[in-house]
């Protein structure tokens, strides 16, 4: 069978140096290839090079073959431009960047259709294909929910009936339930059209559940490739294993998530030896001098490592992530007196829309870690915003047992690290300003130290930080006034698993060391299991279930909790260690 997409010897070069080094990819019609790796490993650059949308100053060489057409990259870009949008489609993470805010969805979809097919009926048919009603054609993107927007973007990228679809984090911005719907939709369309899918994701659960084959990228290089199930079941490359282990398991709690120290190096900084050597526990002298060559490692698998992991190593490796028997430590101060009591909280937006919060009552004790789970639109964020005073409830009470201005009681960390910091303000200025809101005990240096960043970062602008570093700064800023409660609203949802593990461990440490109460809001049940002692399950603005985390997740009483549980991608034996998924 000839491949739908065959990329050979891809090399992407920016003015600073090489971003992607001799990468080969191959996907057959109807199959799914996932590219995984941490942020900055070159996943998006690979996608952009294949589709010919590299930013100015960045160039690519190599061969891209789509069906029978072969394009030599670096040559005539028009050939690639011709393939783009006809044979290859692209779907991005944030539909806001691919959809124009000022044009109606129908017009945008029509513009992507072949000239002969630009009819209202065709637009409606295409919308139907992605399970959207025809009226969406007359709506603007901002009038749609995140999931609907991504469906419109999907319809547009499928408009020319491509043979290959490249999805760069296509569902990362969506909540689990919507994510599942969009992924199912994609799978269905893929089956009907025998379309090949290249799925770029940092979510290992998604990769595991949806991909046939997997390429693990690190610092612009493919380090391990093969069938997805085999790679997850028994990774050979230490990096694959580390990634897998830092993904929090859904079915049990671990005392401390294994993390990868440091971050992905710039690919051009690697002059000799293995790109992963600086972070690899197995690195030996040879690793620092000679670059490992790609070697076969069993059926259809290759690995680029001098000392690949073997079966017995794997058994040992996972010892690091032994299940913790005891629940998360609660740094109880004042004998667990309630810090805040929320009673009968109600908030409605607009006339006849169902209320965002409907008679919600919760309690958070001093020093306690509490989780709130629920899908998007269930009212999680509204609850958080009411607690910090960004939103005013229509009814109900919020009673704090401690005195003081609100900003000394509670602070919040949001989901998107990129917009959490003022782009025009240095890290030091932002932290200094926040510290001045406390009693002046904390200096900028202390705060950076608290979240594990070097003091030199004070001079940096947010744009010069990675997502994980930005989120650390956001946490430091929230801790600056010494609040009693820290609210984390999806604070790790947009981070790489490796960074997510670091931030989760950091939050756990801060919680224990500072006696900080934490309200953890998330749609990710595996994450909440790691951090929260008690759990509230929210649905359509109501608390449908609450109790100790282990009992709620161990035996969900409510049908909705069970449904939420089933939506988690790769929810069965997420880490390949625990067996048996919890069925209520």
């Amino acid at each position, binding site marked *: 069978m000839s491949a739908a997409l065959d990329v050979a010897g891809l090399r992407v070069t920016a003015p600073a140096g090489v971003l992607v080094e001799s990468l080969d990819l191959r996907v057959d019609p109807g199959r799914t290839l996932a590219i995984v790796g941490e942020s900055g490993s070159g996943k998006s650059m690979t996608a952009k090079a294949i589709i010919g949308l590299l930013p100015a100053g960045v160039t690519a060489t190599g061969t891209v073959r789509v069906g029978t057409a072969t394009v030599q990259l670096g040559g005539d870009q028009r050939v690639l431009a011709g393939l783009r949008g006809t044979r290859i489609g692209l779907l991005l993470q944030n539909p806001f960047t691919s959809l124009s805010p000022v044009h109606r969805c129908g017009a945008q979809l029509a513009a992507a259709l072949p000239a002969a097919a630009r009819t209202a009926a065709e637009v409606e048919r295409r919308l139907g294909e992605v399970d959207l009603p025809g009226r969406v054609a007359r709506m603007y993107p901002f009038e749609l929910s995140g999931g609907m927007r991504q469906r419109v973007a999907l319809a547009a990228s499928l408009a020319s009936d491509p043979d290959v679809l490249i999805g760069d984090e296509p569902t990362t911005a969506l909540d689990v339930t919507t994510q599942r719907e969009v992924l199912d939709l994609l799978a269905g369309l893929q089956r009907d059209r025998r379309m090949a899918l290249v799925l770029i994701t940092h979510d290992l659960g998604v990769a595991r559940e949806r991909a046939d084959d997997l390429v693990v990228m690190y610092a612009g290089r493919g380090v391990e490739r093969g069938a997805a199930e085999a790679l997850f079941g028994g990774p050979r490359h230490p990096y694959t294993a580390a990634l897998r282990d830092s993904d929090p398991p859904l079915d049990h709690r671990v005392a401390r998530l294994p993390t990868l120290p440091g971050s992905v190096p710039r690919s051009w900084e690697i002059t000799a030896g293995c790109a992963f050597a600086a972070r690899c526990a197995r690195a030996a002298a040879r690793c620092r001098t000679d670059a490992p060559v790609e070697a076969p490692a069993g059926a259809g698998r290759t690995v680029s490592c001098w000392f690949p992991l073997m079966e017995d190593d794997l058994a040992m490796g996972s010892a690091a992530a032994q299940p913790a028997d005891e629940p998360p430590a609660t740094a109880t101060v004042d004998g667990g007196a309630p810090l805040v009591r929320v009673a009968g909280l109600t908030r409605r937006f607009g006339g006849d829309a169902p209320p965002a919060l409907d008679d919600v009552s919760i309690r958070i004790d001093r020093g306690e870690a509490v989780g709130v789970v629920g899908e998007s639109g269930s009212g999680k964020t509204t609850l958080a915003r009411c607690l910090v005073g960004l939103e005013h409830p229509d009814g109900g009470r919020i009673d704090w047992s401690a005195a003081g201005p609100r900003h000394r009681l509670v602070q919040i960390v949001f989901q998107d690290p990129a917009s959490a910091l003022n782009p025009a303000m240095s890290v030091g200025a932002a932290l200094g300003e926040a510290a001045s809101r406390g009693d002046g005990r904390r200096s900028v240096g202390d705060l950076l130290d608290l979240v594990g960043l070097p003091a030199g970062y004070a001079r940096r602008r947010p744009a010069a930080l990675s997502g994980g570093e930005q989120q650390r700064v956001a946490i430091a*800023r929230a801790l600056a006034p010494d609040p009693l409660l820290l609210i984390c609203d999806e604070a790790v949802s947009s981070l790489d698993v490796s960074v997510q593990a670091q931030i989760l461990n950091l939050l756990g440490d801060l919680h224990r060391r500072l006696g900080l109460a934490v309200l953890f809001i998330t749609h990710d049940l595996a994450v909440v299991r790691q951090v929260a002692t008690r759990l509230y399950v929210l649905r359509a603005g109501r608390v449908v279930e609450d109790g100790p985390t282990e009992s709620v997740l161990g035996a969900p009483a409510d049908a909705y909790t069970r449904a939420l549980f089933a939506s988690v991608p790769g929810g069965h034996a997420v880490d390949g260690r625990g067996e048996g998924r919890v069925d209520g």
Partner: protein
Amino acid sequence: MSALRRLGWTPVLCGVPLVAVVACAALGSWLVPDATRQDMALGVVKAGSAGHLLGTDKLGRDIFQLSIAGARSAVVGPVCIAIGSMVLGVLLGTLAGYRGGWLDIGLSKYADLLLAMPTTLVALVVAGLVGGGYWVTVAVLMVLFSPTDIRLVRSAVMTQVTRPYIESAKVLGLADRRIMFRHILPNVAPVALATMLLNVAFALVGMSALSFLGLGVGPGEPDWGRQLSDARKLLVANPAAVIAPGALIIVTAAAINLLGDWVQERAERSARQR
């Protein structure tokens, strides 16, 4: 070379004429001290004759010198208008976008009202009431230009206020003034600057039109719009007397416009990348 590659030709092509105009505005009285000297005996002569590169007008004034001297009023007024209206725009637009509510409604109504005013007519009426003059015209245009700036700043501010970093600043309990001027303003400044440039071009055309109607500078003062209106009847006697100021207005306005578009595009792109 690499700077040119990165920035493109636009800033160079627009920058050259603009630098020349600004230099003339700054050094005009030194370069051409006698620009307004009349020579009634000579009267109007065609371009190239009697040492007059672009000829003279009917008062015998040298068109070339007059055009150089006219750069001052072409630069000073429009720049003041653009800055003044943007200061109004930033103050009121930030308040409206950040505070919302009745303040926003009130300011929007005020902006609508000003937008509905016919510029020339208002300038005529004000000139009739308080007497004409260059600075009266500048003040009138400043106020009349402000509503578009208010709207622009307001919508730029509104895209910022819902961002998490502003919400975090609110949760930290920072004063509104600090949030507006320390946090929001630096992030809308690029767009405001670009618009200011565009406004200079509009103001130049507007001022020239009013001078043409006799509302701008006093009689006899060097000014491109005034020159145009004075030379209307000389189209045959010395075409250069009309073409020179006209071309200057067009080239200057177009260069500012292109540069403004270029800055705006970059500002928007960098705002998107954030």
